[in-house]
């Protein structure tokens, strides 16, 4: 039995492309379940499926002392959604590095709920969006810290770069904290390519499109530092950025 199709009145779907979602809704299975056993660590990379509508959902449980490093590139042509519900037990660590890279009429979103239910866990979410044409890129992220989850350390670092006047970025980091000894940071910025950086690159010989692509690579490049610049996700992101600036 399939759940009813969400509407935009649903907070987690307020920026979603409901029409596109409707086209795949009946075929979507339940969210994938990922469990990291106590004291284990896992690294995962999510690449775009290549389909115009690409919805990925996961319920993730990170047990005591375990760690998950998740890298994701959200770059569907029409609608891309990455939806995570993450629960962190004592001393667990969740690192999420994701990019929305879109152009045309694409709607790309990252929607996360990170639940700190026990002490001493850390979560860091770094999301970069690069949006051209009429693309919409969103981040909706909730961090919920339970009363027991003292010494929680969480960070949401969200930045978007708009390449056209008609592109849109939404960022909504949200904190719900019931413990009193926690460090929860969040920041969100939306900007454009810096004219002086572009000129500096041009003065060194880079044609405009190449200069833009290089600056954008720098903007999201830090996300994949741990994987190296030759990793598949870094190479794919680079290709998408070059398409965007052509």
């Amino acid at each position, binding site marked *: 039995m399939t759940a009813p199709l969400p509407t935009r009145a649903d907070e987690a779907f307020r920026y979603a492309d409901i029409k596109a979602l409707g086209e795949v809704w009946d075929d979507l299975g339940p969210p994938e379940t990922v469990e990291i056993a106590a004291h284990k660590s896992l690294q995962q990379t999510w690449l775009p499926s290549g389909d115009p509508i690409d919805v990925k959902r996961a319920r993730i449980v990170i047990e005591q002392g375990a760690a998950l490093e998740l890298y994701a590139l959200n770059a569907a042509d029409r609608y891309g959604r990455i939806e995570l519900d993450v629960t962190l037990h004592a001393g667990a660590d969740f690192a999420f590095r994701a990019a929305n890279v879109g152009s045309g009429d694409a709607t790309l979103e990252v929607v996360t709920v990170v639940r700190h239910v026990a002490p001493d866990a850390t979560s860091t979410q770094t999301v970069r969006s690069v949006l051209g044409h009429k693309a919409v890129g969103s981040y909706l992220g909730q961090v919920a810290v339970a009363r027991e989850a003292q010494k929680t350390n969480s960070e949401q670092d969200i930045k978007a770069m708009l390449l056209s006047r008609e592109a849109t970025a939404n960022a909504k980091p949200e904190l719900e904290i019931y413990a009193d000894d926690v460090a929860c940071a969040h920041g969100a910025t939306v900007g454009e390519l810096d*004219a*002086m*950086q572009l*000129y*500096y*690159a*041009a*003065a*060194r*010989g*880079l*044609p*405009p499109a*190449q*200069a833009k692509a*290089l*600056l954008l*690579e*720098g*903007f*999201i*490049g*830090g996300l994949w530092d741990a994987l190296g610049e030759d990793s598949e996700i870094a190479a794919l992101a680079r290709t998408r950025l070059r398409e965007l600036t052509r």
Partner: protein
Amino acid sequence: MLNIENLHVATGDKPILKGLDLDVPTGEVHAIMGPNGAGKSTLAYALGGRPGYEVTDGSATFAGKDLLEMDPHERAAAGLFLGFQYPVEIPGVSMLQFLRESLNAQRRTRGEEELSGADFIRLAKEQAGALGLAPDMLKRPVNVGFSGGEKKRAEMVQMGIMAPKFAILDETDSGLDIDALKAVGEGINRIMRAPDKGVLLITHYQRLLDYVQPDKVHVLSAGRIVKSGGPDLALQLEREGYAEVVA
């Protein structure tokens, strides 16, 4: 090599350069000195093609070509190097990647073969070494976290890598301590002192000229060259001040 005639440049609606004439022959180093607000940086940016610096009249030719017709990246490929007074920081892009892509873009524009990764690294290390810049700095993001002196040394490393025909150096000496000033001065001589090259040094102070001996010194005031002379003119300016010499 660089011929400028009756150059008028405005930023916004404000005229800054008002009929500037300058001729730097091949093989020479010329210095432009002048008080704050005279239009020194405007000259550098106008020659470098920075958007917002509008040439409203006059001409500038470089090696026989109309410089003002070219896009900034084409000017670089033609052999013009602009040393920035305030080198720009580019987070997330390593100096090596930035320079390799820039150099190869120039070479492609000129119809030359690209430099291989290994050849480029060798060239970059050699130039960094010559300027006393730790090679590890080249792995860092462009100018990010560099001190003022390191940024200016890095500009000279960039110049050494690009090996331009002509360099316009906008206050490359500002913010340098004595050691860095000496290193930068030696760098300019080593890279640019050649019979087929030329340099336009823009500076406030005489001190860089102790290391880089100019063939000619020009005084820029209120948007025009008001006085030209030999190296002695710089010493006279230092002694007597701009107000006295320009009057």
